[in-house]
Structure formats: C-alpha cells, structure tokens
C-alpha cells in the first residue's frame, strides 16, 4: 500500500509536467488551430537558455523566471515570423512548418550548446518528507504545486481579464473578433508567447530528473500529446487532468506490470492515444461546437 501511494505520487508529479506541456499545446491549438510539434524543442531550447544563465552565475530561481520571460518574447517572435505567413493554410502545411521549427530549434541548440548532456539543478532539492509513513520528495510536491499555480493563473487570466477574453474570442471566431476591433495577429502572438513561457517552466522543472540535452523533451512531448488527446485538445483543464492520468498510469504500469518495466513505459501513452482516438476522439473534456441557425 505504501509503495502504491509512493508510485502514485511520483506519477502525479511526472503527470504535472506532461500536463503543463499539454497545456502549452492546448493554448496554441485553441488560438491558432495548430498542433505544435515543436513544443518540446521550444521547451528544450528555453531550458538551455536557463542553463546558460546559470553558467553566468544567475541564481536558479531568477534564471528560471528570466527564461520564462525570454521564452514569452521568443514565442511571440516565432508566431510573427514563422507561423503568421502560413496561417490559414491547409493542416498539412502547418504540420510541416512546425516540424521544420522542431528541426531548426534542435539543430540550433546543438550548434550553440553542443550535444552532450548536462546536469540541471532542481529547484526543490533532494530531500523528502515523511507523510504518514510515505516518503514523498519535495520535488514531487513542488512540481505539482507549480502546476496548480500555473493552471490557476491561466484560468484567472483567460476568465477575468480583457485580454484573456479577447484570446478566447479569437480562438472561437477570428473573423467576428476582428469586427469587434480586436487585433487578431497580436492576440495570436500572445497565445504563442504564453505557450512558450509555460513550456519553458515545464522544461526547467523536469530537467533535473532527466539530464539536459537537445533531445531530452522528446519523450515528454509524446506523453504530453497523450495527455492533450485524452483531456481533449481544446480543453486547458482537460490537458492537466489528462497529464495526471497519463503520469499515474505510466508509473503504475512500469512498476507493477512485469513485461512493461521501464523500457516499454513509452507504450502506455501511445496505447492511450490510440484508444482515445478510437473511442472518443474529442477527448474527456473536449467540446464539439454546436451551431444553431
């Protein structure tokens, strides 16, 4: 039982990371209708920026904060320079563009920082705490808490601010938003900026347990795709809940199902993606628009 709780808590912490990256995917999908295959590489690049700041003796907390801010700006630039020219093209073209962005960021990071892996310090240390006989690491608690904070902040932003309302309006009906005087392009830039910032946070949170190199977000991205698919690609809270379900399932399957172990764990998200697409393509919390004449 103790073991089960411990594995589950680890799953929730891992799932929080998947959830945050899935949230970034959802942010971009909702605002621009694009499935951003480069999300993982964007987060990887951001994490290297944080690592660079650490090398320049910037304290860890400040380095992460600075990276999140820089990533916000970087995401806006990516939207304006790379995505805007192909906006509204057919889905295949958009997929190719995000794949191109993936390769660009991957090689760019390798060119700047090299292909070796590097250690990245954790924000929450290696200590753990004893809660009614179950050992839980501060890292797990910290990551989960940060995730909840990010979700809460994004929720407040989209529901309580004028800009958040504009973002929701643009994601539903860009033509009509324009007629209300909303600068759609600027709103989309902010959507990409937010996704990049959220992804940067996920990257810096997960890097301590994975080692930082140019491919370290690859597996995370696959889990995050599973989370977003499960939660519904247009549902922010679905993304996070999907992340937790994926994380816990992955940990439990890896721990208790002998033939899966740690080598075949990656099959878990892939299986979930396929199952969701077959049974309920809109995901648990996804919506299908209802039009009325």
């Amino acid at each position, binding site marked *: 039982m103790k073991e089960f709780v411990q594995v589950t808590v680890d799953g929730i912490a891992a799932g929080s990371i998947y959830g945050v990256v899935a949230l970034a995917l959802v942010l971009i999908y909702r605002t621009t209708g694009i499935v951003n295959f480069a999300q993982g590489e964007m987060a990887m690049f951001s994490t290297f920026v944080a690592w660079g700041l650490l090398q320049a003796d910037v304290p860890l907390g400040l380095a992460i904060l600075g990276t999140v801010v820089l990533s916000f700006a970087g995401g806006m630039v990516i939207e304006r320079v790379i995505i805007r020219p192909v906006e509204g093209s057919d889905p295949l073209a958009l997929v190719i563009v995000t794949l191109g962005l993936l390769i660009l960021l991957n090689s760019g990071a390798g060119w700047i920082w090299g292909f070796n892996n590097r250690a990245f310090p954790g924000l929450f240390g290696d200590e753990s705490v004893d809660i009614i006989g179950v050992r839980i690491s501060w890292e797990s608690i910290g990551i989960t808490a940060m995730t909840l904070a990010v979700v809460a902040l994004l929720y407040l932003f989209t529901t309580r601010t004028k800009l958040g309302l504009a973002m929701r309006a643009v994601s539903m009906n860009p033509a009509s938003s324009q007629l209300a*005087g909303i600068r759609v392009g600027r709103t989309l830039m902010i959507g990409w900026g937010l996704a990049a910032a959220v992804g940067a946070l996920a990257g810096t949170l997960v890097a301590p347990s994975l080692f930082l190199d140019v491919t370290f977000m690859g597996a995370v991205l696959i889990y995050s795709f599973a989370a977003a698919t499960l939660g519904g690609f247009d549902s922010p809270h679905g993304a996070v809940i999907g992340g937790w379900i994926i994380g816990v399932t992955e940990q439990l399957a890896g721990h208790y199902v002998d033939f899966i172990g740690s080598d075949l764990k990656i099959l878990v998200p892939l299986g979930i993606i396929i199952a969701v697409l077959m049974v309920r393509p809109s995901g648990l919390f996804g919506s299908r628009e209802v039009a009325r004449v």
Partner: protein
Amino acid sequence: MSLLEVDELRATYGQGHVLHGISFAVEEGQIVSILGPNGAGKTTTLRAISGTVECSGRIVLDGQDIRGWGADKIARQRLAHVPEGRGTFTELTVEENLLVGGYTRRNGVREDIARCYQWFPRLGERRTQHAGSLSGGEQQMLAVSRALMLRPRLLLLDEPSLGLAPILTRELFGILERIARDEGITVLIVEQNANLVLKFADYAYVLESGRIALDGDADEIQADEAVKRSYLGV
C-alpha cells in the same frame, strides 16, 4: 459631405458574387438600404466596406479613405458590421459576447451593457447563458447589441431578418429604428425582404448583378409597383 462615400467599388467574393464598380453615398443620420436578389453583391458590398473582403475603388468614411485597412482598424473607427450568420461567439456567455463587442472602449462598457438589456430584455434574462444556446432571434438581438457596444457611427447590417419569424423581424426592425434615431446612428442595411425594410429606411439602392440598377427615396420605391416587380420580386 456624406458620412460614407463609395466610389467605383470592385470586388469578388466566393463564386459569382462580383461587384462591377458601384458608387453610392450614405448620409449621416439616415437609414439606407441596399436591396436586390440573391447574388446581386449585397453582402460583398458590406464586406468590402468593413474590410473583410479584398476590393478596389474608394471607400471614404468621414473624409478618410479606409479601403485596404484591416478589419480591426476599420472597426476602431466605430464602424460596426453585423455579418451574415451573426458571428456569435457560441461558447461565450451573452454578457461576454457584449464585453467582446465593447473591447475597444475604455469606459462606459458596463452602462452600455445595461442599455442593451433595456432594449432587449431577453438578453438580460440570459446574460449568463452560453450564446450558442440562444434561439435564432435572440442570437440576432445579441449580434446587433454586440455591434452597438462599439458605439458605432455607422452600422452595417447584413440580412437581419434571415431565419426569423416575420413577427420577430418586425419587432427587431422597430427597435433598431428607434435606437438608430435616438442615438443618431447611421445605418446601412442589406435585405431581401424589401417591403419590410422600405418601411423603415430613408433611402434605398437596388443592386442587380453587381451594378446599381436604381436608387431613390424609400417611399418612392415602395410606391412604384413596376420597380418592385421587376427588381425585387414582390
């Protein structure tokens, strides 16, 4: 000087919706109607003015040529457009729809929302409901209210009667006329229902195959049975 002057407007939108260089003017404070059969270019004309379809020619709003501007920039000149299909944000609540309508405004938004609820009490009753759950008539009221939130100088209306029961349409037009006259809003309205709109309009243009076939005071056109038969099919 007219509030809106359109000169040699040419545009193509979709299949077979073409404007072959039309010119017309809308005087400040008037309700002007563009009539004509399906495919005559009525919707294209409105879309060209609000910047949602590419066009050539001159579109002068209050002395400024706005042709080629982005739709959002034109909206910020307080030119509101209620598009075909109403453009409702179905997953936002009624109140959020109105807030989006008032996006460009700095103050007075709450007061204006209250005014919309006075004009259309049904919207007030449903302020927390998703706009997608409203009936067609209520969605049309919402679309008009959203446009009014811009405090427009010029309001473009595209077939507000579409899909509405006749009694509802008359009611809507009555309220619209009252608001326009009270607030001094200039209205350019596109309609297929000529008989109805001519009761409210001051002036009308009749479009046929992308050209202006004739124009005149609304009551003159209303009185001319020959014109109505040959151009408006009533």
